[in-house]
């Protein structure tokens, strides 16, 4: 590793040269702009500033090679992991990448990383005490991101459900002359009796009404 000659390019650096103290080049490979941003922010707050985001498209492998990162972070669910690993095998971008987890004995860390969907590749020779905080931070940020995603998803579903229930209510109000409250109570009672969700009963009612040509 010491025998490499400096190439002198600003962004590129000699293959195999590991980071000096204080600097660590981290590349985040991610399709989702938001997740990558959430992670990058966290890393910057923690004092890392040599961070690059590369989407796994087109010639991303060549770009990564030129960057010669010390740590590569990637979503475990990304289908492009096989492509990245092949590149790690045939090129020397990461002098000798070691397994995705730094300390194989740290099973809790490994479990947390897989649960969070983080995979990491680290240049050989980088001390594990230096990498562990990066990985822990990535795990926390990935978890934050998926929480945000599921909250967003819930909010979207709730909104869509409400629209369905509202439409079913209007059908009942029109066809049976019920008040809004009575229409809702009828939907709720039917749902309870059938062991279904109100939105499912409402959807069934809308479908039936459409089929019968009585749509709103």
């Amino acid at each position: 590793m010491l025998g490499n000659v400096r190439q002198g390019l600003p962004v590129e650096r000699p293959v195999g040269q590991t980071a000096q103290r204080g600097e660590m080049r981290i590349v985040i490979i991610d399709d989702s702009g938001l997740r990558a941003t959430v992670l990058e922010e966290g890393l910057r707050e923690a004092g890392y500033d040599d961070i690059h985001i590369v989407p796994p498209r087109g010639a991303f492998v060549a770009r990564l090679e030129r960057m010669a990162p010390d740590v590569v972070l990637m979503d475990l669910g990304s289908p492009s992991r096989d492509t990245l690993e092949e590149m790690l095998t045939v090129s020397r971008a990461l002098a000798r990448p070691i397994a995705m987890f730094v300390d194989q004995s740290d099973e809790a860390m490994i479990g947390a990383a897989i649960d969070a969907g983080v995979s990491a590749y680290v240049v050989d020779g980088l001390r594990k005490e230096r990498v562990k905080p990066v990985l822990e931070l990535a795990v926390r940020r990935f978890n934050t991101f998926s929480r945000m995603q599921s909250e967003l998803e819930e909010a979207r579903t709730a909104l869509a459900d409400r629209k369905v229930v509202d439409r079913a209510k209007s059908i009942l109000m029109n066809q049976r002359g019920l008040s809004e409250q009575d229409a809702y109570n009828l939907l709720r009672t039917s749902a309870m009796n059938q062991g279904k969700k109100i939105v499912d009963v409402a959807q069934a009612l809308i479908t039936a009404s459409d089929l019968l040509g009585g749509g709103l």
Partner: protein
Amino acid sequence: MTTSLRIAFLPLNDVAVLAAARERGFAEDEGIALDLVRTTSWATLRDRLVYGQVQAAHMLAPLAVAVTLGLSQQPAALAAPFKLGVNGNMLVMARDFAAALDPDPARRLADPLGTAHDFAAAIGLWRRKPVIGVVHRFSSHALMLRYWLASAGIDPDRDVVLRVLPPSLTVEAIHAGEIDGFIAGEPWGGAAIASGRAEAVAIGERIWQRGVEKVLAFREPWLEENPDTVDRLLRALARAAAWCDEPDNREVLADILSHADYVDQPADLILGALGGRIVPRAGDAPLDCPNFVLFSREATPFPWRSQALWIYSQLLRWGMVEASPQAAAQAAAVFRPDVFRRALAGSDVPMPGASMKLEGALESPLAVGSRKGDLTLGPDRFFDGRVFDPERIEDYLTGFSQLR
């Protein structure tokens, strides 16, 4: 008492046996609740298995050998007591590349050697190296593609670019012009053909008539510690495999596989490959390839140690591993005919008497020694007629040396 098992898989037709075991109640009959975990890359499937997030995986046979030999990230001893299928791959190329080959796709498929030579002759006419997608360095697909290319003097590491990408991204990549062709398990080749962008160039079964493909892989210590669960699972899978091979069940099977939880592709596309009806070019009549994929007959699930050693021989051939008696022994030990025999001793599954055989020696079906039931092995020739003797790996490789 019900045992829960998590098994990781990739969306491919040959997840059939696992899907049938779950959806048709074969696992439940053995007191097993199967949780099948859909995964989009082999790397993640491997990590989930190696780090114990799943108990087993639908794994490329060469990857199981590679992980055991420490060639693919964290080394771990894996054990494969059951093959999930034989054959099932197809090499397709973009239409302008296929135009350099025999215009009749049926003749192309029937003559892999001629097609390889046509392809070799055409390489010089293109202004760049052809880029061919493979699903993984350690896949049966990559090993067969290399074998096929080399038969015509093409050096797969020099004359073409092999690009790794997961099966589910192959069709998109050929559309985007990022690759000129790819070899993958179905339904992905079929999907590229149906889209009109690619044509069939070779099928796995015509390269090696009975080619080792996916295995059910466990961590070896887990397999040893849970013999009862493993045996029950294998019994369920053997029944599921027999169900999958039954032509009358294919439509139901294709329907199961088409669901978003499994392959998430149209059922008729999946059905074509299951039944060996291969459309080689959009608009053409399908060709009959009755051995396109096998799940049960001819003792397909039996893990012949000679097949693990064939994989090892190819890893040696392409310089992916250093030759050593220890590595050979480790590779052979990944396949576990002993566990297969133990699990299925009381069943009516025909049981080969031997654990190794010559690979590629059968030109026609052959009735072989079996501990019970009738067992006929199908023809298993390689298209170039070479025979692999697992006890003479060096000689076998010397035979290729003028090619590489």
